[in-house]
């Protein structure tokens, strides 16, 4: 038997011995004919499953880096194996930028340590260069409005909507972030695979799903009285509800310039939070929130936005960030309890 025949036989035998997909997790078990986000009939259930399995995989992968536990179930027997990864990626390292912004990469080539940020409203730009001045290696990431000229490039295989072009010594990749924003990455002296991995590590691109809220029982704003909206705020605060249209309203809390909170509530689209990543300064996710909540700055104030009960809630306040987060989490809890 030749070497190629031996390899074929081994691969076929290994394939037969693989655990069936349904034994590897809940999502697999739910997919008799369609993938996990496949159709409206079980879209909600599948979304929850994906969320749960995604978090499970994500936490598994983030947990320590070198040891992975794989559990398989065959019939009634459970078999757990612990294996050690033989090596780690040597070309990319966790980003040294030190911020957890939604449009910042979470990995960068390990020698691109010298990063600087330029905010030239309405664009944000991050440039990271090699720490060795004799080496010409650089990546620039810029989030810019879609009104800017679009990159005339070719499709990037496996990455829907991405386009790539080579301009002199630079490689440029452009990715639509939402309806109103695009991310443009320009690299010099960086391998194409590295650049794709860096762009894909940007949370608003690679983990966009984390910004899409789970389905909840919708709240019909027009049927919700002013008194119910006022009751969302603690009783010791001065509250006023102003309806600007039948489908949106302002809730104004307090009157002093230090602790005034302006809340706008209106109709939501699932991708709204993605748009705010380009809208807000220093956009990132609120830690430990039960749902995706984007926090950032707007006109030197703290703004927090989230989608709940089918509505977009936007809070703007001059309060310190910690207080604004606490206020938003309390408000979110009150919204959950609305009938």
């Amino acid at each position, binding site marked *: 038997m030749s*070497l*190629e025949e*031996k*390899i*074929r*036989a*081994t*691969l*076929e*035998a*290994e*394939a*037969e*011995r*693989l*655990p069936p*997909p349904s034994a*590897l*997790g809940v*999502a*697999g078990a739910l*997919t008799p*004919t*369609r*993938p*996990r*986000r*496949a159709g409206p009939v079980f879209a909600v259930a599948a979304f929850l499953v994906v969320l749960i*399995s995604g978090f499970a*995989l994500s936490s598994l*992968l*983030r947990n320590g*880096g070198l040891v*992975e536990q*794989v559990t*398989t179930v*065959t019939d009634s*027997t459970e*078999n757990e*194996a612990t*294996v*050690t*990864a*033989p*090596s*780690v*990626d040597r070309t*990319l*390292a966790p980003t040294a930028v030190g911020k957890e912004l939604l449009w910042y990469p*979470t*990995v960068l080539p390990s020698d691109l340590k010298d990063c600087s940020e330029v905010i030239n409203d309405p664009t944000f730009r991050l440039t990271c260069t090699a720490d060795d001045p004799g080496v010409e290696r650089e990546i620039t990431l810029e989030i810019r409005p879609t009104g800017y000229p679009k990159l005339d490039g070719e499709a990037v*295989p*496996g*990455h*829907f909507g991405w386009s790539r072009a080579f301009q002199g010594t630079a490689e440029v990749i452009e990715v639509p972030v939402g309806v109103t924003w695009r991310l443009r990455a320009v690299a010099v002296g960086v391998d194409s695979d590295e650049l*794709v*991995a860096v762009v*894909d*590590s940007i949370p608003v691109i*690679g983990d966009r799903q984390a910004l899409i809220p789970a389905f909840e029982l919708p709240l019909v704003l027009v049927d919700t009285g002013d008194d119910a909206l006022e009751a969302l705020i603690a009783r010791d605060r001065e509250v006023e509800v102003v309806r600007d249209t039948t489908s949106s309203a302002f809730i104004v809390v307090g009157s002093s310039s230090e602790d005034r909170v302006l809340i706008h509530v209106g109709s939501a689209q699932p991708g709204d939070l993605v748009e705010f990543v380009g809208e807000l300064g220093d956009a990132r996710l609120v830690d430990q929130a039960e749902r995706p909540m984007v926090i950032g700055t707007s006109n030197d104030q703290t703004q927090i936005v989230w989608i709940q009960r089918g509505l977009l809630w936007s809070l703007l306040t001059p309060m310190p960030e910690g207080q604004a987060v606490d206020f938003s989490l309390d408000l979110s809890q009150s919204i959950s309890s609305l009938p």
Partner: protein
Amino acid sequence: MKTNRDHLDSAPSTFDEFYRARYTETYRSLALALRNPDLAREAADEAMTRALERWRVVGGYDAPQQWVFRVGLNWATSRLRRHRYETVGVLVEPVGSPPLPDPDVSEALASLPLKLRSVVVLRLYLDWSTEDCAEVLGISTETVKSRLSRALDRLERALE
């Protein structure tokens, strides 16, 4: 002899047919390349979901399964890079499985880097042509040939 390549010419007309015909093959080939069934299942699910979302386009391709494999492999390698992981290199053996014909070959395959093993899986397990492999992996046909040659050399040395 019927090979996996025989399926390339008979693209199903609906996503449901495609999914039923190709899911297992996609999952298995990704698992063999990644040596990680859990990640392969996630990657196959992700790739199939993306295929469904743009089936009007993907369904018109000559071989949608190649597009799906490419998307799955890219998704998995991005995930591996993001978390600074290399593949685990070991396939989990279900209880009661028949023995492998040659465990040494399996071990040697596991020792290959992902780039080389992907070519081996596409060429020797799926029986795809050099041109198809090049298209799927986004590399030239010469690189496919060179990677396969290097992989076979390394396997031969490992089995000596």
